[in-house]
């Protein structure tokens, strides 16, 4: 009390406070700017992530086609003139395309150069011709201009992913190939068309013939199994824990256990699936059935936690009213509480399913990484799923798989956005404030 009452000291302190206030306000402004900078950094990263994917991936939805004039030689397509679809189907259309390439560039002679020349077309280009012929067999014997798929390297060149100015040795597409493709382009014979193959085919070693449909179907079967297993079990256990369970050691244990299970790394669930479902029970490898079971165990905690929150939000007065008019406890739940909590439960389920759709690691453990060309027809057929397909393509050496990978990521993100939007909509539409 003795040192601070002197008037001179008080005066000096007042002077200082002015300055200190300025300093404090500056610190305040700085702190605020840090916060804003952090948010902008996070949003910028999100922007870059999405931006690079869309920038690199939008070209996956189109494919370079080349207009090839083909003489549909009846000698080769249908020598007996039987007009039988099975005969027409089996003809060597790739050979016809090779013939017309040879005719167009007669100066190409050596065996090596010829193979290079044939290589500007896709190995599957013959199928484009076949489909045209099958659609209208009367064109056999005429010369038709048919748009066929180019090979993946030519596709990359046309889309501008291969730099023409590089020295020839560093380039995947050689000088003579560029000359050939430019000669087609000069006649307007090179164009990019919508890539239906990407949405209808299974996996392939050739980028231009690879598609995501097999993976989409695999994802669908896997999620179907996950949903069928996890939804009833999740809702039943949430109802039990929230409405019926007595408060004791055992239910405490279950609760702690569920919270911990929600944070167990997903790859551990894969190890569980490998050791138990494949090792002990002997279920088939690579099957959506096992994948779905593993993902069901993984999403179960999410669904239980979300359902419990939804059940908790239903006010006790509703339960008391129902009990008051003589309903049994189960009737209270099934007739009143559960229907009222359903929007919340469904929202949680959709979010859990979205999580399962994006999951990769546990499925690697149970062998869903195989190279599978066929579209799976059931839950026990070998299959792969969209994220695993992305993983497989990301590893592929061909340049053209980069855009396919980005394209597949765009499709996957599209599904996820759709599911989350549905969840938000459900919450907005049916959420009740009590």
């Amino acid at each position, binding site marked *: 009390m003795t040192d601070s009452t002197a008037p001179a000291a008080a005066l000096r302190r007042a002077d200082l406070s002015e300055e200190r206030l300025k300093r404090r306000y500056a610190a305040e402004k700085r702190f605020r700017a840090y916060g804003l900078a952090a948010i902008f950094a996070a949003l910028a990263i999100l922007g870059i992530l999405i931006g690079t994917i869309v920038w690199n991936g939008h070209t996956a939805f189109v494919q370079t086609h080349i207009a090839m004039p083909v003489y549909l030689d009846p000698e080769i397509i249908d020598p007996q003139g039987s007009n039988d679809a099975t005969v027409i189907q089996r003809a060597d259309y790739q050979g016809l395309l090779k013939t017309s390439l040879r005719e167009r560039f007669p100066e190409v002679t050596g065996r090596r150069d010829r193979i290079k020349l044939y290589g500007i077309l896709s190995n599957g280009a013959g199928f484009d011709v076949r489909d045209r012929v099958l659609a209208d067999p009367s064109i056999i014997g005429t010369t038709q201009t048919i748009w066929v798929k180019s090979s993946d390297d030519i596709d990359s060149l046309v889309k501008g992913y291969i730099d023409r100015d590089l020295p020839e040795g560093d380039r995947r597409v050689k000088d003579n190939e560029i000359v050939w493709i430019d000669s087609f382009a000069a006649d307007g014979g090179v164009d990019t068309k919508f890539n239906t193959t990407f949405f209808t085919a299974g996996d392939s070693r050739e980028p231009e013939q690879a598609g995501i449909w097999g993976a989409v179907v695999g994802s669908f079967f896997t999620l179907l199994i996950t949903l069928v297993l996890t939804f009833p079990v999740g809702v039943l256990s949430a109802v*039990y824990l929230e409405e019926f369970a007595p408060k004791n050691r055992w239910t405490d244990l279950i609760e702690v256990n569920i919270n911990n299970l929600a944070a167990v790394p997903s790859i551990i669930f894969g190890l569980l699936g490998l050791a138990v479902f494949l090792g002990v029970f002997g279920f088939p490898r690579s099957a959506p059935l096992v994948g779905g079971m593993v993902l069901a165990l993984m999403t179960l905690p999410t669904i239980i936690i979300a359902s419990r929150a939804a059940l908790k939000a239903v006010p006790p007065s509703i339960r008391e009213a129902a009990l008051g008019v003589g309903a049994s406890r189960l009737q209270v739940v099934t007739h009143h509480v559960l229907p009222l909590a359903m929007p919340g439960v469904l929202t949680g389920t959709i979010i859990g399913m979205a999580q399962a759709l*994006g999951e990769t690691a546990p499925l690697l453990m149970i062998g869903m990484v195989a190279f599978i060309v066929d579209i799976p027809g059931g839950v026990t057929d070998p299959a792969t799923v969209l994220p695993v397909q992305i*993983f497989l393509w990301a590893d592929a050496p061909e340049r053209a798989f980069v855009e396919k990978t980005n394209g597949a990521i765009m499709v996957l993100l599209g599904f996820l956005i759709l599911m989350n939007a549905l969840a938000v909509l459900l919450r907005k539409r049916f959420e009740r404030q009590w």
Partner: protein
Amino acid sequence: MNSFILIAILLVLSSIGYSFGQRRARSLSGNQPSALHSRPQYYGLYVALWCGIPSLALMALWLILEPQVAEWMLISSLPADIQALPADRLSLLLNDVKNLASGNIVSREVDAALQSAADGYASVRQIGNAAMVVVALAIGVLGLSFARKRITPGLRARNLVERTVSIVMIVASTIAVLTTVGIVLSLLFEALRFFSKVPWYEFLFGLTWSPQTALRADQVAGSGAFGAVPLFAGTLMITFIAMCVAVPIGLFSAIYMSEYAPPKMRAIVKPMLEVLAGVPTVVYGFFAALTVAPFIRRTGESMGLDVSSESALAAGVVMGIMIIPFVSSLSDDVMNAVPRSLRDGAYALGATKSETIKQVIFPAALPGIVGSLLLAMSRAIGETMIVVMAAGLAANLTADPLEAVTTVTVQIVTLLVGDQEFDSAKTLAAFALGLVLFAITLTLNVIALNVVRRYREKYD
């Protein structure tokens, strides 16, 4: 598909049972439902449960046991000299017999003995399947008629149904516990088998990791060293880099969101940050491998540094981006839970907002924030796809973030993907690594959840 059709048939049978029971109860009461103990629907449910549960349970049991029984029968039908083969050769042979039976490609020449074994196996499976269908349907029908007979107006159907339903609920809620038990048991069991081949101290403290052991005796391969320290070091380094990225960005955005941001901005920015959490990890992995790693490499080279194309830095930075939303949304919740009165007290003393945050709110929320950081860390340690795609495979013991390191999860994936022998030390090592991973993340989670819970109780 056969069993799915059977399930569908049994479900249809149950719903038929439901309407049977209901009608029976109505007619017994002489169309006066008040004469019944329960409402007629409960009699229907009673019949449906009697019809569905035993038959479906039998079917499940059958599907699990039948392959084992069939295999046992197959082995006992084989000639004695084949039965005496070592276990791995025998299992190869059995695989071939099964493939032959289901008409797939076989890896050896088919002789008469093999063919007859395959035929026998196929017929056993066929008979087994047919028997399952018949028995399951018979039990369904029996259950239906039994329950229908038992219906009397005085039957306490509602109580019986409710008791069954509550048993089903209890079973459902124990599945989560069973999952944990399954995880622990399967990891422990396989890890113990691994430790019988490789001593545990060598695994935990050994400094070299080269798991490529020879599959055959004449193969040239690594010596098979299983010292996991380089993996732990790599995991820690990548996690540390990730936390260096995620903690400042996550914490500062949480502070801004909870203290400064106007509600409108909050409503827009918060879901956008959560999008970062919803992006599948395989997408982050691809982003790390194709965009971030080359970028870091180019930047490093322009500064005259030698950067590996699978540097720990790239994987760590992208993993940090992935866990930003975990840090920010959890810390945001925690700071919002700090009571209004503490804030008001600080403002009343003349503190600026940032001073209030730094000196009052942050210390008050610290336990919760630590909990959220621990949760984010356990997420980073267990994350797989980013490191599989962006980090290396070589187990370098290094402290340089520009070099390639490998992690526990990467090694689990590389050891288990592709062709494998289920008994080799190589595959079993993956389970030992899994056990370590599970133990570490579980410990972190338990601590974090406890801290957060205690913190909540303090302010609730």
